C-alpha cells in the first residue's frame, strides 16, 4: 500500500543541488511564442493544403429544426460540403464507449434536429478558403419550431433541486447555533455567467493517413479523453487517433473537453480526403463552449461578540444545461476555511435552456469567496473588529469539517505578513474617510483557499548519445509553464544544464498524464517526471558501474552523483555524454509514474493566501479603479518563482475582473448571451491593474506529493475579487452584493447613501 510516508526520502528536487528548483527560469517555449513561431493547432502545417470548415450556430435556445435549405450555400464559390443533422456522416450516439476503458465517450456533432441552447452548432460548411466558407455559412437557411426559452435563472430559483447524488452537509446544529448567536449576518450575493475568453479560441486541424488513422491537432487541456472521445465518435480504434495539442493559448477549464470543431474537422477530413481546419470565432466561443454559471449565494454567520463564529452557512444556487449536471460548488471551500461548531453548506441546481455550464479557473472558490469573504468583512464591521483579526480569531486547529489535521496551513502567516507588507494598519475602519483628488480611497482584504490534488500519471525520460535528456509526457501546457517546470525537474534530477533538456508534451502517444486543470498539473505531471528522472539516474548509474570502460566501473551505483553534465563517484568521473555514447550509443529510455498515496485523505491539504487591495472610487461617477494589490500565498515548494508568480498575479487580475467588470448578460427573450466580443465582455486591460505583487511564503508540504509542491494556478483567483469589493466599501461606504460592481450600480448606491 502506498503511503505519503513513502515520499519521506531524499530526492533530487528536495536536494536541489544545482539550485534550479524554485529559480525564476524563463519559459522553455517563450521565444517561440513571442516570435509567433509556436504552431498552435490551427497553424500546424498539414501534409497537403487544408480545406476550411465553419460552424453555424442555432438562433433559438430550445426547439427543433424543421427545415433546412442549403442550396445557396452549396452553390456558393469554393464550397466542398454543407452538413446539417440530415446529412452529417453517421456517428455513434452520444456517450457511446465501444472500448469500455475509454476516458470519454462519443461526442457526435450535428446529432439531431433538437436544439438545446442558443448558438449550438447546427450546420457546417467546408470550402477551399476560409473566406468562401464564411460567406457560404451565412447562406445556410434553417427553419425552427422554437419553444419559449427557459433561461431566467433568478425566476427559477424556487425550482432548484439537489445536484445528483448530493446532499447538504451539516456539522453540529446550524440553525440552533445561528439563532443562539448574539451577532448574526444573513445576506445574499449573486454572480453572473462568465466565459473563459481564452486568447486562443478552440480550434482543430485533422487529416487521415489511409482510411484508418486520424491525425488531429487541437487545443485541449486533457489529452487522453480528447483522443478517446474522438476515436469513439469516429468509430475507430483508440490507437488509430493520434491527437496532439502542443501549444495552447489559454484553457482555464474551458478546454477541459473537446467541442464540435474537433469532431467536424476529423469527419470532414475523412469525407473529403484532405486536411480540414475548423475554429470557433470569438462570438461562437461564448455560446458554443462551456461557461462558469451564475450563482446566488446565501451566507449566514452567527458570532459571539468577540468574533468567534458559532455558526456558518453558505448555500449556493446555480444552473446548468438542460441535459447536464455540472454544479458550481461555490460552498465547498468554506468547509475548510474557518472554525465554527455549527456548519451548513450545500448546493441547489436549476436546469435551463442555456449553454453547458462547466469548470472555470478555481471552480467553486472563485464565486464562493465573492460572498463569504465579503460577509466576513461585514461581520468584522458589525463587531468593530479588524477584518484580519476576525479571521485570525476563527483560525481552526484541524479541518473544521472533518477533524483531519492540516498537512500545512499558513493562512495566519499570509494574513499577518500581507497586512504588514501592505500597510494595512493605515486603513480607517469607517468608510469614505480618505480622499485623493477626485478619488475616495479604500483598502480591503480577503483570505484565499484552494484545494490541492494529485492524480495518477506517467512520464518517460531518455538520454541520448549527446547527453541530451528528453522528457516525454502526454501532459499539456496551457500557458502555465508546464514545459518549463518539467525541464527544470529533468535538469535538476539528471544534473545537466537546462539547455540539455528537451520536453515533448501534448501528444496522445506519449506516457499519459491527466493534463492541466484544478491546479493539479505541476504536482501530478512533475511527480511522474521526478519518478522517471530518478529511474533514469539509476539506469545511468548502473550503466556506469557495470561498464568496464567507465572510470566508475565497479563502484556502488547508489552513490553515483549527477552534476554539471558529469556522472561521478568520489573522485572518479566522466561526462554523461561520454558514458552514454560509449556504453549505450542508442540511448536509454525509462518510465516513471506517480500514484496518489492511499492514506493522503488523512490530511486536509489545501493552498492558502491573503489578498490586500487598494481602490479608488470616483463618487461622482461610480467608477472604481484598482490602485494596488498584494497577495501573499502559501502553496508548498515553488518550482519556478517566475511562472508561479505569473499564475498567482493572473489569478488576482481575474479576481479584479470578477469584482468589477466581467460577466455575460442573458437576454431572456432569446435565451442568448448578449455581450459576445471582447469590446463588450470586459476583462481588465493594463490600465486597470496598478501596482500588483504576489509573494510566496517558504513552505514544503510533504503530504502533498514527493516534491512537496502544491498548485498555484487557481489560488490567486480565490478571494481576490472579495478583497476588491471590500476595498470599494471601505472607500465609499456602499456594499454591492450583485457582481460585477459596475458604475451604474455603484452610482445608485452612492446616491442612496447621500453621496
Amino acid at each position, binding site marked *: 500500500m502506498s503511503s505519503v510516508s513513502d515520499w519521506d526520502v531524499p530526492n533530487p528536487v528536495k536536494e536541489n543541488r544545482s539550485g534550479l528548483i524554485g529559480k525564476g527560469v524563463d519559459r522553455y517555449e517563450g521565444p517561440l511564442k513571442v516570435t509567433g513561431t509556436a504552431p498552435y493547432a490551427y497553424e500546424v502545417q498539414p501534409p497537403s493544403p487544408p480545406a476550411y470548415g465553419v460552424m453555424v450556430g442555432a*438562433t433559438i435556445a430550445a426547439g427543433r429544426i424543421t427545415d433546412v435549405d442549403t442550396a445557396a450555400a452549396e452553390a456558393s464559390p469554393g464550397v466542398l460540403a454543407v452538413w446539417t443533422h440530415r446529412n452529417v456522416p453517421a456517428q455513434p450516439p452520444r456517450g457511446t464507449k465501444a472500448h469500455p476503458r475509454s476516458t470519454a465517450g462519443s461526442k457526435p456533432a450535428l446529432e439531431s434536429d433538437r436544439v438545446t441552447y442558443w448558438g449550438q452548432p447546427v450546420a457546417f460548411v467546408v470550402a477551399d478558403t476560409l*473566406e468562401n466558407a464564411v460567406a457560404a455559412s451565412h447562406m445556410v437557411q434553417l427553419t425552427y419550431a422554437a419553444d419559449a426559452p427557459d433561461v431566467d435563472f433568478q425566476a427559477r430559483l424556487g425550482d432548484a433541486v439537489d445536484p445528483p447524488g448530493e446532499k447538504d452537509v451539516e456539522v453540529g446544529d446550524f440553525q440552533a447555533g445561528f439563532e443562539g448567536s448574539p451577532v448574526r449576518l444573513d445576506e445574499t450575493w449573486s454572480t453572473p455567467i462568465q466565459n473563459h475568453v481564452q486568447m486562443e479560441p478552440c480550434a482543430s486541424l485533422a487529416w487521415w493517413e489511409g482510411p484508418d488513422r486520424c491525425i488531429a491537432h487541437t487545443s485541449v487541456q486533457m489529452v487522453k479523453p480528447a483522443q478517446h472521445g474522438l476515436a469513439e465518435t469516429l468509430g475507430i480504434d483508440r490507437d488509430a487517433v493520434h491527437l496532439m495539442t502542443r501549444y495552447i493559448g489559454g484553457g482555464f477549464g474551458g478546454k477541459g473537453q473537446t467541442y464540435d470543431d474537433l469532431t467536424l474537422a476529423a469527419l470532414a477530413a475523412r469525407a473529403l480526403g484532405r486536411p480540414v481546419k475548423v475554429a470557433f470565432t470569438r462570438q461562437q466561443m461564448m455560446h458554443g463552449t462551456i461557461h462558469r454559471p451564475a450563482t446566488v449565494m446565501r451566507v449566514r454567520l452567527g458570532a459571539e461578540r468577540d468574533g468567534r463564529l458559532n455558526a456558518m452557512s453558505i448555500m449556493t444556487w446555480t444552473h446548468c444545461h438542460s441535459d447536464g449536471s455540472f454544479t458550481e460548488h461555490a460552498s465547498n471551500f468554506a468547509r475548510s476555511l474557518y472554525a465554527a461548531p455549527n456548519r451548513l453548506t450545500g448546493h441547489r441546481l436549476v436546469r435551463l435552456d442555456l449553454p453547458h455550464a462547466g469548470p472555470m479557473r478555481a471552480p467553486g472558490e472563485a464565486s464562493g469567496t465573492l460572498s463569504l469573504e465579503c460577509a466576513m468583512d461585514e461581520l468584522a464591521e458589525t463587531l468593530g473588529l479588524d477584518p484580519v483579526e476576525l479571521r485570525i480569531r476563527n483560525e481552526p486547529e484541524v479541518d473544521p469539517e472533518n477533524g483531519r489535521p492540516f498537512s500545512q496551513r499558513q493562512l495566519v502567516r499570509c494574513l499577518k505578513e500581507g497586512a504588514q507588507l501592505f500597510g494595512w494598519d493605515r486603513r480607517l475602519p469607517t468608510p469614505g474617510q480618505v480622499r485623493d483628488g477626485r478619488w475616495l480611497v479604500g483598502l480591503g482584504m480577503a483570505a484565499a483557499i484552494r484545494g490541492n490534488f494529485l492524480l495518477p500519471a506517467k512520464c518517460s525520460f531518455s538520454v541520448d548519445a549527446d547527453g541530451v535528456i528528453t522528457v516525454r509526457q502526454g501532459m499539456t501546457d496551457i500557458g502555465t509553464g508546464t514545459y518549463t517546470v518539467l525541464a527544470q525537474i529533468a535538469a535538476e534530477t539528471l544534473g545537466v544544464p537546462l539547455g540539455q533538456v528537451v520536453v515533448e508534451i501534448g501528444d496522445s502517444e506519449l506516457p499519459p498524464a491527466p493534463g492541466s486543470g484544478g491546479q493539479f498539473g505541476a504536482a501530478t505531471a512533475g511527480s511522474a517526471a521526478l519518478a522517471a528522472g530518478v529511474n533514469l539516474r539509476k539506469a545511468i548509474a548502473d550503466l556506469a558501474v557495470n561498464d568496464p570502460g567507465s572510470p566508475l566501473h565497479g563502484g556502488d551505483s547508489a552513490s553515483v552523483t549527477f552534476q554539471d553534465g558529469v556522472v561521478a563517484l568520489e573522485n572518479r568521473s566522466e561526462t554523461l555524454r561520454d558514458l552514454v555514447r560509449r556504453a549505450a550509443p542508442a540511448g536509454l529510455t525509462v518510465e516513471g509514474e506517480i500514484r496518489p498515496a492511499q492514506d493522503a485523505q488523512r490530511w486536509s491539504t489545501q493552498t492558502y493566501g491573503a489578498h490586500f487591495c487598494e481602490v479608488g472610487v470616483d463618487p*461622482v461617477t*461610480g467608477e472604481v479603479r484598482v490602485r494596488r494589490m498584494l497577495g501573499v500565498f502559501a502553496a508548498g515548494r515553488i518550482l519556478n518563482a517566475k511562472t508561479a508568480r505569473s499564475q498567482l498575479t493572473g489569478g488576482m487580475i481575474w479576481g479584479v475582473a470578477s469584482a468589477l467588470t466581467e460577466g455575460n448578460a442573458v437576454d431572456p427573450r432569446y435565451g*442568448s448571451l*448578449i455581450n459576445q466580443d471582447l469590446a463588450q465582455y470586459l476583462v*481588465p*486591460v493594463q490600465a*486597470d491593474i496598478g501596482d500588483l505583487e504576489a509573494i510566496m511564503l517558504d513552505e514544503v508540504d510533504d503530504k502533498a506529493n514527493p516534491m512537496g509542491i502544491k498548485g498555484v494556478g487557481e489560488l490567486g483567483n480565490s478571494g481576490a475579487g472579495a478583497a476588491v469589493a471590500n476595498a470599494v466599501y471601505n472607500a465609499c461606504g456602499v456594499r454591492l452584493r450583485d457582481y460585477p460592481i459596475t*458604475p451604474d450600480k455603484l452610482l445608485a448606491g452612492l446616491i442612496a447613501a447621500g453621496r
Partner: protein
Amino acid sequence: MRPFTYERAADARAAVKSASETPGARFIAGGTNLLDLMKLEIERPQHLIDVGRLPMAEIEDTPDGGLRLGAVASNTAVAADSRVRGRYPVLSQAIVAGGSPQLRNKATVAGNLLQRTRCAYFYDTSKPCNKREPGSGCGALEGLNRNAAIFGASHACIATHTSDMAVALVALDARVETLTPSGQARSFPILELHRLPGETPHLETHLVPGELITAVALPPPPPGGQTYRKVRDRASYAGGLASVAVAGGALALGMVAHKPWRAVDAEAALASGASPSEAMARELAGASSAGRNDFKIPLVARLGAAAIGEAREGAR
C-alpha cells in the same frame, strides 16, 4: 465576409466619382470599424474605395487662427499635435479616451466621425435591429440596453453614437468640409452631420451618398477652460457610458444620443448665471430613460457639473 472589389483612389475627385458611379461602393480609411462590420456581414459593400492614402492628412493653421484637420489624419497624429494639445486640449483628451493606441494609429478623423454604434443587438446579426435591417424591429428596446440614449431616441432605435472625438468637436463648433459626388466642395457645422434616429435609424448622417469628408475645420479656441471626461466600466479601451466635453461656455455630451449632443439648454442656463448643477438639471429636464439606463440621467448630471467645475478651475 462577402466578396468585394477594391480600389485605391487617385485623388479626392476620382474617389467621389467612383463612389457615385459604382453600385454598393463605400469609402474605407483606417478600416478599424468598417472591416470589423464586414467580417460580421453587418456591412456588405461590394466595392471599397480606399481614401486612406489621399493627401488629406495635413493638420494646418487656418487664416482665422483656427486649425484644419485633414480627413485622413490619424487619431494619434491629431491627439499628439502640439497645436491641438495647446489650443484644443479637450480634443486631444477626447481622442486618447477612445480605443487603444493601435486603433488610434489606424483610425482617421472622418472614419471616427462616421463610426457606427456599439449597440450589442446591432452587432449580433441573429437579433432584430432596425439600423442593420430596416423594419426588422429593435432588439435593444425591450432588451439589455444599459447604454441606451436618454435624448432624442425613437421607438425605432435607442442606440447612441459612441465617438469620443466627435463630442469634443461639437463643443468646439467645428465645421465639416466635404466634396459632393458632383465635385462641389461644401462645409457645414458638425452638429448638422449626424441625425437622430426617427423612423430611419439606418440613416445616420446628412451626407449624400458618395460624399467625401475632406477635412474638419476648428475655429479659434473659445475663451475659457476645456476638459473632457468619460465614464467607462474599465480604465481604458472601453466604450463610454457617458461623456462630457467642455470648451469655454460650450458643452457637449457623448453616448447619450444617436448623435453627439450639444447641451444648449445647459449652456443657456450657465450664460444666465445658473450653477453647473442647475444647468445640468435644466438640460436633463429633456431626458428620458427606460429602466436599465436610468442611471445615465444622474450620471450625466453629476459628471457634467464636475466637468464644468474642472474646466473653470483649469481656466483660472
